[in-house]
């Protein structure tokens, strides 16, 4: 209820702002909604959303799987941690734009370059979070698993992954929002379709209606992924905590 009221207040604020400004600078919610409908009717909205979403999914999956493996290794192995830490710090502090431009220069304006550039932007963040998780694994449970000779598969499934789950959830949360923002930049700089490309077009034509008509549905889409996928998964994984005082 409060969430709906808060959303309504935001819309009202937007409408008031639109009344007092040039419609070319800030079009009202209704005008934007009409543009969304028009773009949806032509099919362009869905194809662009789908292609952007596919890029988000591919680069996110790549960054998370690599980041989890590297982060776990660095958290459990001191030598690996000391060897890879300078690389990690360098990558963490490398601006997204530099990674994207380098990827396009070295690998051409290709899909592979685009997806790897996004993944490379998310990777260090995933590594840092999962490394913390791997460092925090309970040594008492490790000993228990050793005494009972848990095979490696059981150790991973029943001991390590449940302890990493909150860290994986945190990396997913921050990762999804970061990845989709970077995907738009990648599309703007070197792709000929997707939400980022359309926003670039809108910018060139100075068409704020079109810009918002692409930005808002995508935000809504990511919000849907968060509430319908990430949060229920998180609740399921944490169900054992319910009984704890």
């Amino acid at each position, binding site marked *: 209820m409060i969430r709906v009221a808060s959303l309504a207040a935001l819309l009202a604020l937007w409408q008031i702002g639109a009344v007092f400004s040039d419609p070319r600078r800030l079009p009202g919610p209704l005008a934007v909604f009409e543009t969304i409908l028009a773009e949806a009717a032509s099919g362009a909205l869905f194809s662009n959303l789908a292609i952007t979403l596919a890029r988000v999914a591919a680069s996110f999956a790549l960054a998370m799987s690599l980041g989890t493996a590297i982060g776990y290794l660095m958290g459990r192995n001191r030598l690996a941690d000391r060897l890879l830490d300078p690389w990690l710090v360098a990558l963490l502090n490398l601006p997204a734009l530099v990674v994207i431009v380098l990827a396009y220069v070295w690998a051409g304006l290709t899909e592979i370059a685009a997806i790897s550039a996004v993944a490379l932007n998310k990777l260090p963040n995933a590594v840092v979070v999962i490394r913390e998780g791997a460092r925090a694994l309970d040594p*008492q449970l490790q000993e228990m698993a050793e*005494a*009972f000779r848990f095979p490696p598969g059981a150790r991973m499934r029943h001991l390590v992954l449940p302890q990493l789950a909150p860290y994986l959830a945190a990396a997913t949360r921050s990762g999804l929002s970061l990845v989709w923002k970077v995907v738009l930049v990648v599309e703007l700089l070197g792709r000929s379709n997707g939400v980022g490309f359309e926003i670039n077009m809108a910018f060139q034509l100075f068409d704020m209606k079109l810009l918002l008509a692409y930005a808002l549905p995508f935000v809504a889409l990511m919000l849907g992924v968060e509430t319908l996928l990430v949060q229920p998964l998180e609740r399921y994984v944490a169900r054992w905590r319910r009984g704890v005082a």
Partner: protein
Amino acid sequence: MSPAGGAASLNVAIAHKDHLRASGEPLRALEDLRLTLPAGQAGAVVGPSGCGKTTLLRLIAGLDRDYVGHIALPAHGRLGMVFQEPRLLPWRSVADNIAIAAPEASSPEIAALLDDLALTEHATHFPGELSLGLARRAALARALAVKPDLLLLDEPLVSLDAALARGLRDKIAALIDEKRITTLIVTHDLAEAIALADRVFLLSPRPARIVATLDIPAPRARLTKASGLALETQAREALLRSQ
């Protein structure tokens, strides 16, 4: 670690075991500690707190291999261990905790164990929902489910109230008599050791070694109150003599 032929008894001969202090200098925890426990018997290691009992148990369990000496486990060397803290996986139910640790155990076997330890109604509960007494019993069920050649119990009755402790002590005694698993119990409580064991090993303060071994001719259910008290006196005298 156990010879191929399978010496059935537990043989421990530790020359010495040092811990490294934070300052870097070694601290001697165990010195010249020898004990033998025949197959199928229960032994209890008794000593003042901080004397190195848990260290000894960790060496026997193979959790710490940094020592000088030799340890031979009973044949096959399958371990069942009950730690002082129950150390159950908090994100798995009681029944799953047992099944994960003992994948060879069939579900009727697990059900029978749960029933034996009065845990049936808690089978689907998560460890966070259990009291310490219940969690200890679940940890004991898990250790028994692997059908161990050697059962290690670290202070199994500590931090339980008197009635609960007595109940669990009688349960453990009955299980030892019934299953005849070679069992080593570590405790600070002499009366508890005498109530549970066939053989009691008395430890000195650190660095720990065995100062006396007490054989209990009529253990557990057959132990009378008078003989228990007599054994306790005998043990205290042995400890005094060693000082």
